[in-house]
């Protein structure tokens, strides 16, 4: 009996999925869930298995073991066409027909996706990526950034419920990458579920509700903020005009104080359990000690810190 997807169902449910090519393991025992409307980042170094995951969930490759459902449909050969009707993939390389114009490329894919009114779908997709005025240019004459935009327009033609973006800003300059960020943010507001692979951490941090870090096995998963907090203790960074005579005496009075250290630039990093509660007390203690405070603020670890910490570690099981 055919499964009947409901809107409350997650967009993706991946359970112990493994893909091998002969003896080479692309990814191993990966499990996660992506909710509808979520922008989900899949991070990992080159060769981590990100593209293979996209290809597998996009029904181009068959998993070696494990199971998955895509928009409520089981990931198996019998549902390939149904899944591909409701999803779209933007591969890492745009893969455009360079001799054909932008519009001719989109016309082909509008028909392949069986769009109801191809002309309208094409015009809307071109407008979404701001390429209406280049519609009649051969794709071979476009810059790499514009080609990425055409590839994104192609992926938007069928108004997919789930969009896989494989390294969408790979090889783009910062301006072109920023344009792509804007487009992804626009898609998020339209309610599309986005599965985005990247090794650009600032991209994941900016765009994604949750990120998963993969290096053949899944290392961790969660919102970028939560990952930082989970992995690194919270600290308050203080810059003073002169070093403290007795830091232990000053910091020891602060509620939730754990330890202190100085960074390479001489600033104090005071580890506390709750920075919001500790900061006022810390300011008072510093003033009482006669210290001249130049700056005080929460020390933030970047997603890069999390990433670098995790990619060399062993697998984290059941990281849903």
């Amino acid at each position, binding site marked *: 009996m055919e499964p009947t997807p409901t809107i409350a169902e997650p967009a993706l449910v991946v359970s112990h999925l493994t893909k091998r090519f002969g003896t080479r393991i692309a990814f191993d025992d990966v499990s996660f869930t992506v909710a509808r409307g979520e922008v989900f980042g899949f991070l990992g170094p080159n060769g981590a298995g990100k593209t293979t995951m996209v290809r597998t969930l996009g029904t181009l490759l068959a998993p070696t073991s494990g199971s998955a459902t895509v928009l409520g449909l089981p990931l198996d050969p019998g549902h390939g066409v149904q899944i591909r009707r409701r999803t779209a*993939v933007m*591969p890492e390389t745009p893969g455009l027909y360079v001799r054909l114009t932008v519009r*001719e490329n989109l016309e082909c894919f509008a028909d392949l996706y069986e769009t109801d009114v191809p002309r309208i779908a094409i015009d809307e997709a071109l407008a979404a990526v701001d390429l209406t005025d280049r519609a009649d240019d051969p794709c071979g004459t476009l810059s790499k950034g514009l080609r990425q935009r055409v590839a994104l327009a192609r992926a938007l033609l069928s108004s997919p419920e789930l969009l896989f973006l494989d390294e969408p800003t790979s090889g783009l300059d910062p301006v072109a990458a920023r344009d792509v960020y804007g487009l992804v943010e626009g898609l998020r507001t339209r309610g599309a579920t986005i599965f985005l692979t990247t090794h650009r951490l600032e991209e994941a941090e900016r765009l994604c509700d949750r990120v998963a870090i993969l290096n053949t096995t899944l290392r961790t998963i969660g919102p970028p903020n939560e990952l930082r907090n989970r992995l690194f203790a919270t600290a308050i960074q203080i810059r003073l005009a002169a070093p403290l005579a007795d830091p232990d005496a000053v910091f020891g009075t602060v509620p939730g104080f754990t330890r202190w250290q100085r960074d390479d630039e001489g600033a104090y990093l005071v580890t506390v359990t709750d920075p919001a509660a500790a900061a006022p007390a810390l300011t008072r203690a510093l003033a009482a000690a006669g210290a001249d405070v130049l700056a005080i603020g929460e020390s933030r670890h970047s997603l890069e810190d999390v990433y670098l910490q995790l990619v060399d570690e062993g697998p984290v099981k059941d990281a849903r």
Partner: protein
Amino acid sequence: MSFDLRRVRAIIRKELREIQHNRSLLVAMAVLPLVFIIQPLVAVLGLSAKAAAGLSHEHVLLYLLGIPVLVPPVIAATAIAGERQQGTLEPVLTTPIRREELLLGKALAAWVPSIAIAYVVDAAFLAVVALFAQPGIASAMVNRSDLAAQVVFVPLLAAWSIWVGLAMSTRASDARVAQQLSLLASLPVVLCVVLIALDVIPPSPELGVALAALLVVLDVGGWWVTSRLFDRERLIAGTRD
């Protein structure tokens, strides 16, 4: 299995547009038949008027059936391997298209220009012979059965050659390798055509019907076999589980 003609049409239209914009492909498609007709043309134009009587046992027109065998691999062999090399295959395979639809679209897009070229070359050959050969040569050379053979066998041979080319294209890692293998695989058919043209295998209506029936079976079977050879996973990842 549902079969969507709109997706087939999309592939045909895209392929024909690409062929139209691909000058090197057009040149290759044009040059190959020209090379193929030079020898018979020189031979026919060199005949004296007295030789007309001896032409009744020769089938120069059948020799031209080699053209629909040799032209299609130029297009068909690059159809899959070429797209794979250019990175355009993956986006197509992420759409709802089925492999049977993709291959039929590719085959029809190669078939239409191939048979058009074959018929145009046939017509050009006959026109040159009629205009420049010695009196009596053209009328002695052209007979109804050979013309009928052209009409029947050009599409059938082109289709067979296309399926061979597509089959090679789905398995070869490189478009040029696929082209060369396709041409190599076509040679036995060309040899057969030449032997019939030279009357080594005497042509007859019975032989014509049998060969046409065989080609119809091979053409339909070719679609099925090529579809089975088309392996998404190997084409995308370059390897298999």
